[in-house]
């Protein structure tokens, strides 16, 4: 096993070196990992700018003329599984949440965050309809499903901490989204920390939502981003710029309130219903959630995630966040598309700047 791996690694290094020398050499395929299970036929997802890009096939259209194919790879294991794929060099870009990327960075994976895609979303805690759990406090000693290593975990931990609890006070089972929904429906668990997928269960009468975190403060929100592997960025900065351009375009379309209806219908192709999207984005302007900006709020949030992860012993050494972001491409795209003032910038506490 190991000699094979060494050989493969050597081969990959050799190939990478040759590819560096032939810098004009274009890749034949761009691989983007998505930290979600793809649903529907063909598989797709929803809830963020990345989903819009994938649904509308914008990248495929952009690179069709160059003969570059675009491969979207879905991972049922979400963020952690994407990390394994990155470590394996099986991806070029990844759409991932804040915590899993921090975990990867703490373990030495070299990536750069290009732009945000899906910010200020929260977690929801669902329980069976006849359960006696009314709030987070009642979760003590209960069996709770938390998808470890995804950005759901840290918000859950913060919510628990705000109620003087921690994970050890619960019996935590690690289940992916689909499994935890099934377990909740069959009453196999007492509660599930989940995302917008819970709305479907609620509408079917199979679950009750006892807590939604997105309005409770910055530390109860989670963010997701598009990142690129260091190697790919150094080799093909032009392609990275073009990808970012497409994402910014899609972000603008997804932030336009006139497109709200069309947006939810587009995302509904992933099996999460129109009604669920309406509930998820209720009382929130699209611009607020689909902003791609890397502003002080985002930087502060990622720093907080890194600190919390260290404190909770999810990582063993501190992570430097400042050098992680690469906003250069985003700024170029904003300038080129004249969108510098389209989205509001927020400060570290979440208040609008200027």
């Amino acid at each position, binding site marked *: 096993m190991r000699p094979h791996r060494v050989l493969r690694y050597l081969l990959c290094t050799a190939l990478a070196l040759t590819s560096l020398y032939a810098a004009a050499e274009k890749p034949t395929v761009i691989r983007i990992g998505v930290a979600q299970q793809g649903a529907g036929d063909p598989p797709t997802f929803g809830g963020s700018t990345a989903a819009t890009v994938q649904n509308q096939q914008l990248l495929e259209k952009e690179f069709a003329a160059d003969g570059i194919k675009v491969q979207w790879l879905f*991972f049922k294991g979400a963020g952690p599984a994407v990390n394994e794929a990155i*470590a*394996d060099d099986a991806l070029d870009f990844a759409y991932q949440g804040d915590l899993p990327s921090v975990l990867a960075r703490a373990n030495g994976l070299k990536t750069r965050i290009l732009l945000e895609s899906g910010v200020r979303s929260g977690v929801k805690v669902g329980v069976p309809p006849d359960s006696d759990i009314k709030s987070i406090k009642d979760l003590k000693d209960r069996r709770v499903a938390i998808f470890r290593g995804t950005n759901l975990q840290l918000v859950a931990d913060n919510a628990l901490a705000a109620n003087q609890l921690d994970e050890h006070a619960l019996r935590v089972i690690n289940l992916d989204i689909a*499994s935890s929904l*099934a377990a909740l429906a*069959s009453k196999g668990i007492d509660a599930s920390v989940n995302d917008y997928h819970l709305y479907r269960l609620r509408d079917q009468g199979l679950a009750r939502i006892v807590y939604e975190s997105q309005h409770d403060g910055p530390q109860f929100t989670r963010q997701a981003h598009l990142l690129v592997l260091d190697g790919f960025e150094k080799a093909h900065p032009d392609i990275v710029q073009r990808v970012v351009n497409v994402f910014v375009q899609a972000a603008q379309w997804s932030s336009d309130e006139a497109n709200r209806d069309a947006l939810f219908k587009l995302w509904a192709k992933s099996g999460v219903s129109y009604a669920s999207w309406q509930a998820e984005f209720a009382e929130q302007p699209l611009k607020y959630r689909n902003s791609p900006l890397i502003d002080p709020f985002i930087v502060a949030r990622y720093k907080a995630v890194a600190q919390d992860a260290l404190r909770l012993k999810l990582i063993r050494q501190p992570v430097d966040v400042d050098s992680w972001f690469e906003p250069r491409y985003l700024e170029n795209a904003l300038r080129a598309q004249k969108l510098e003032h389209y989205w509001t910038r927020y400060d570290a506490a979440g208040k609008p700047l200027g």
Partner: protein
Amino acid sequence: MRISLARRPTRPVCACEATVETRRRRVDLRGVALPIVAVALWWALSASHVVKSGLLVSPVDVLRTAYEQAGSGALVRALLASLAREACGFAIGATAGFLLGGALGLSRIAARIVGPSFDTFKQISLFAWIPLISVWFGLGDAAKVVFLSLAALLPVAAHTCDGIHAVPRKYVELANALRYSRLQLIRYVLLPAALPSIFTGLYLALIHSWLATLGAEYLLVAGSGIGNLLIDGSEQFRMDIVLFGIVVVGVTGWALNALARRVERTVLSRLHIANQ
């Protein structure tokens, strides 16, 4: 009566299945009664709606699902995917296992150096390696095939080695007396004598790799296959898919066993070797 006693086999009957088959030829109907009663009870229970649970699907639902799956080609696709992976893993693992077992059996030095480590490795639960294998080989088919190969390799290597070691001394002495070369010794004496044991190993490897196929599909979820069908069914909360999947898994397992036994019987009878 004494004659019939003397004719009774003095060696214990080996395989349970053999005994079952002889019995089945005589008392076929009694064995079928229990399943029929069980299915009838099941159908009655589900039709009467006594138990209110989404889980109690009727046999008719399962049959309908079976028809859908078979008709839409989903079943064939999933089955082919699983079997292809298993065949691949089994082929690689069995070959490697055969070579390893042969080396361990034939060479005392190899047995001394590699044997104890192999013995130890054999006793470690293979499924614990899956998370590591998935990180080392990715989430796709490569990892699954590696895992399946390992699952097939262990029994084949162990039984080949044991088979060679169990060859009676007198055969070897006879070959030495006839001045057989090493190669001739292996080809004409050791291999044929060890063949029943090797086949037991191959047979076990088939069973283990089918088990490993399922486990790998649960734990390395990417891709399609029967295991994925089962897990998806349980996640979508559809008992009919799960039951259908179980039947398919059982039937496939039985078919593989039957195939292996048929091949074993043919090969051994061709070579005129008595099956012990």
